[in-house]
């Protein structure tokens, strides 16, 4: 078994060395600018991604007027925030937010293709395009949610929102208990893309630490 792991380590080191060598050769030949890799990946790491959605939701938790505007006129609310330049480009047109709470749980799916609000949620999970998820999300959303570990009480209404080329939905999840003293940044750190699709809840910080321990 030790030999097996040794082999993997060597393979990892070889791949890393060869990628470095390839990059160096491409720079030397003038094919690649030295900062190109960071520039293209920066799009996903700093411009369009789930960090934007988390900031929007955290603001909505702290500011009821902003939350209302977010539900009523999502693009206007997003435009009022100082989010990265260019985040509202691809797939960001016509985003619309729906809020969990008051006896309602929202679930986002896309039955037609794979419309997804990239600028606020980042890359869609691998199962988002899965035909079974898409079909069952419509037919039996409560069963699907239970499988995701989100049991919805019978008296809570489940609303399923079908994203399309015209409207790309995202969910404002419920603010968990035990977060009264948290700042906007601390709150944003709790919010996952899955919670903004409605397939996860945002756990309270105390319950998270208990489950980890």
């Amino acid at each position, binding site marked *: 078994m030790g030999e097996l792991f040794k082999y*993997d380590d060597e*393979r*990892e*080191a*070889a*791949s*890393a*060395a*060869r*990628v*470095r*060598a*390839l*990059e160096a*050769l*491409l720079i030397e*030949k003038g*094919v*690649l600018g030295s900062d*190109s*890799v*960071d*520039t*293209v*990946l920066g*799009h*996903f*790491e700093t411009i*369009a*991604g*789930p960090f934007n959605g988390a900031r929007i939701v955290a603001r909505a938790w702290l500011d009821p007027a902003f939350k209302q505007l977010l539900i009523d006129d999502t693009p206007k609310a997003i435009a009022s925030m100082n989010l990265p330049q*260019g985040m509202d*480009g*691809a*797939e960001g047109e016509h985003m619309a937010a729906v809020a969990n709470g008051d006896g309602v749980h929202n679930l986002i799916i896309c039955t037609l293709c*794979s419309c997804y609000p*990239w600028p606020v*949620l*980042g*890359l*869609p*999970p*691998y199962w*988002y*395009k*899965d035909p079974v998820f898409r079909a069952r999300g419509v037919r039996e959303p409560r069963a699907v949610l239970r499988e995701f570990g989100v049991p919805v009480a019978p008296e809570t209404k489940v609303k399923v929102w079908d994203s399309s*080329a015209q409207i790309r939905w995202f969910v404002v999840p419920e603010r968990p208990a035990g977060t009264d003293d948290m700042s906007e940044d601390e709150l944003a750190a709790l919010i*996952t*893309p*899955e919670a903004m699709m409605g397939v996860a809840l945002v756990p309270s910080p105390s319950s998270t630490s208990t489950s980890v321990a």
Partner: protein
Amino acid sequence: MFTRFEEYAASSMLGQPDSPPRLQGKFLFDKPWEREVFGLALSLSKAGYFEWEAFRQNLIESIAQWEDGYCEGQPRWDYYERFFVALKKTLVDAGVLSALEMAGIDAVFASAGA
């Protein structure tokens, strides 16, 4: 629909056989070289050295080659290793690097370890 090359490139792979690993809305890179090789491919295609679709077809083929291999002696599954194989082939196909230059890259670890 997509105005950014980066998003077009990523979305073309989603739900396809060459779909890259990701977690909570972000690409999942276990090692720095995986991020590096992904960024290299994106950046070179964006600069016009090859069509992204041509690279993708090589990646799908490279993944299929691993899947068709015998279990015995088969190296552990590694998405970015298949990705690197596909990128090297694409660069030679597109004439960005020669086969000889690429052989030099493949020999790097052997000579460094010797």
